[in-house]
């Protein structure tokens, strides 16, 4: 009973948050609603007994990713609207709904369900975190390490990409300076 109530509640909240995120024209609203949606999603993880995953979700998404976005947004002129010229909305909606339906058909089809067997059954008497740790550091050790390296690479890449001309601030420069800088960039033919 509690589970059902919680599920429907959080489902409603998540959907509405995400709906706001994709429809609003204000980047800040979108960011905030997205962050909220992320946290609501972690609620599902807790309901499903994946406590560690839920924690990670909150930490990584709401903490790291959203913070990153927030910092990123500082570089942009978020107050300025991006002109969002829309094409045919029916197509967009239609495609989304059809694909959603198809996915439901495929995933919820009984043939899929009956074929799945537990490869790493839940160990009795151990907490979720413990189980995750056991599997992550045995069977998935190599992917885990690779993921770590990937994160490192991504971090360095992010720094390198974003860090160029960190000493300059577009918001503090006037138009001429910006234009001149762009010209120089073009002449140098630097990638990106």
């Amino acid at each position, binding site marked *: 009973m509690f589970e059902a109530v919680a599920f429907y509640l959080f489902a409603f909240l998540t959907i509405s948050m995400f709906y706001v995120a994709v429809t609003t024209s204000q980047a800040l609203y979108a960011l905030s609603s997205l962050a909220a949606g992320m946290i609501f999603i972690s609620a599902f993880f807790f309901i499903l007994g994946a406590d560690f995953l839920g924690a990670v979700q909150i930490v990584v998404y709401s903490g790291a990713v959203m913070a990153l976005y927030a910092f990123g947004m500082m570089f942009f002129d978020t107050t300025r609207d991006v002109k969002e010229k829309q094409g045919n909305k029916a*197509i967009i909606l239609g*495609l989304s709904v059809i694909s959603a339906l*198809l996915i439901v058909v495929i995933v919820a089809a009984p043939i899929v369900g009956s074929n799945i067997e537990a490869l790493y059954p839940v160990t009795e008497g151990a907490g979720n975190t413990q189980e995750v740790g056991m599997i992550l550091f045995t069977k998935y050790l190599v992917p885990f390490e690779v993921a770590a390296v990937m994160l490192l690479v991504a971090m360095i890449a992010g720094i390198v990409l974003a860090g160029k001309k960190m000493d300059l601030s577009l918001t503090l420069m006037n138009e001429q300076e910006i234009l001149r800088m762009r010209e120089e960039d073009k002449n140098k033919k630097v990638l990106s």
Partner: protein
Amino acid sequence: MELFLYTALFSPLVGSLFAALFGASPKTKIAGIVPSILLGVSFLSSLVLLVLVMVTGHTIHVEMMTWMAVGDLYIPFGFVVDQVSVTMMIVVTLVSTVVHVYAIGYMDHDKGFNRFFSWLSAFVFSMMVLVMSDNFAGLFIGWEGVGLCSWGLIGFWYHKESATWAANEAFIMNRIADLGMLIGIFLVYWNTGTLQYAEAFAAMPSLDTAVLTWMGIFLFIGAMGKSAQFPLHTWLADAMEGPTPVSALIHAATMVTAGVYLVIRANPLYDLIPNVGLFIASLGAFVALFAASMALVNRDMKRVIAYSTLSQLGYMFAAAGLGAYWVALFHLMAHAFFKALLFLGAGNVMHAMHNELDPFKMGGLGKVMKGTFIMMTVASVALAGIFPLAGFFSKDLILEVAFVEHHFIIYTVLLFTAGLTAFYSFRLVALIFHGEDRYKHFGIHPHEAYKFMLVAMSPLMLLAIIAGAFKMGYFNMVTDLLPATEYHVHSATTYWIMTIGTQLFVIAAIVFAYKKYTSKDIKVPDGTSKMENSFGYKLLINQYYIPYFYENYIVKAYRELSEIFWTKIDQKIVDATVDGIANVFYQTGEKTRVMQSGNLSTMLKWMVAGTVVLLSLAVVFGLAARYSGEIKTFLSALGV
């Protein structure tokens, strides 16, 4: 003896190659003399072989080398000298020697002198291969070889449109017949397993009559082309575009008789299928009359003689078709002599008249060209079949054959044709040599030909006169090989009535021709006289409208159909389909490149669309896999 065989066979080839060496250089007498001498050698060798065959009765058979040997098929270059082929060899080499010598004079002023002798000797070689070969394939080599040389020689004056046209016509028409011949050869091979005459003929009696009939028909189709039988006859008259010696040698004496030779050679086959034989005889009789009728009115000297040749070939086929092979061969021989003589005489006249061919524009030439006059008269008498010249013995015999075999219609037709023959021959003689000197109106000063040309012709004249004397000796010789049927009319009275009656009929025709065409008021026809406007005359002068029909309904149709095939079908349908398929892809690409607008948002939309497609496919296949049993039942219920 093989030495003589090879000498007879290959010396014309050597002569041809020798003359060909001078092909590109200006005229040299030597290019004419050497081939002539070599042909003389060939003739002498043939003569030796003839004597040998006649005296000993032996035949010579050599196998020079293998030509084709594949699977079951084995074709050698084999040559045989037997009674039939040696007769042909004598005829061929003799006439061609004479013609060669004659041509040295005739072609004197021609730029292509050397080329001419090369072609002419090559022709003789091909003809020798044709008659000497011991198998059908070898025959076919010669058959096509003479066709080629005939093409080269008809179109010898290649700058003349009419000559090259006639050459191509002759070649193509012969090719049509050759296809029949080829099919005949295939039939022989697949049914008897060999192409050697001896073995193939030995195997034939055990074959089914239907097969034999087809064989006979197809081989005869081949013969029809080469011997210009109806309906493939038009090329022969047009072939007169070639130099006159060529007409004498190829289109009178030798090549056109190849068809007759084939039927004679294949006598064991035709003996087994008398129905086809009767057809051949009937066609022969028809062609004899048909060609003679066209000769009656024609105003081209050479064409008249050509039609006469055609008519005589009809006689030969009539005889051969009725099973009188030796008679046919005898007439072939006799005809070769006097017809060649006639042509060469016509050549002299042409030379004298500066290539004028209309006999109405001549007249009275007998006074200026005594030698030619005598020779042509002799030849015409022989052609008409007056006793005791060669034509009498051979042609009368054919009439007798038809009579004895109780084919009275054929007999009547041939008899009537004999009268026509006499008429048109002497119409020609009368118009050319007698009457007023009409040529003077055209400012021509005729002169007699070179002496040596007349001397060269003389053997032919001699033979045209005396060939009949060889009849018994010839009969004894060839009947070793050919069926020795003697044709005697049962009662002596009937025989005499027939012979004398025929003679009188023929003489009457001659007299009539003389009467009509030596009179003083003969004018060059100008298309106004009543006769010229009559339907019969028009029909005959236009050759029964057959060339017209061919030109308009076959040649033209072929040309137009080709054009349609190319422009309409090949370009508009076949190629357009290919290009159309290519265009579909091209257009698809052209249309879909809009997708690649470079706009990320559009691309994302397409990506989702693609996902949808893939997902639907997954659903469809998943469902199909799950419900495959039910689908199969459903489909089978529908009857798929």
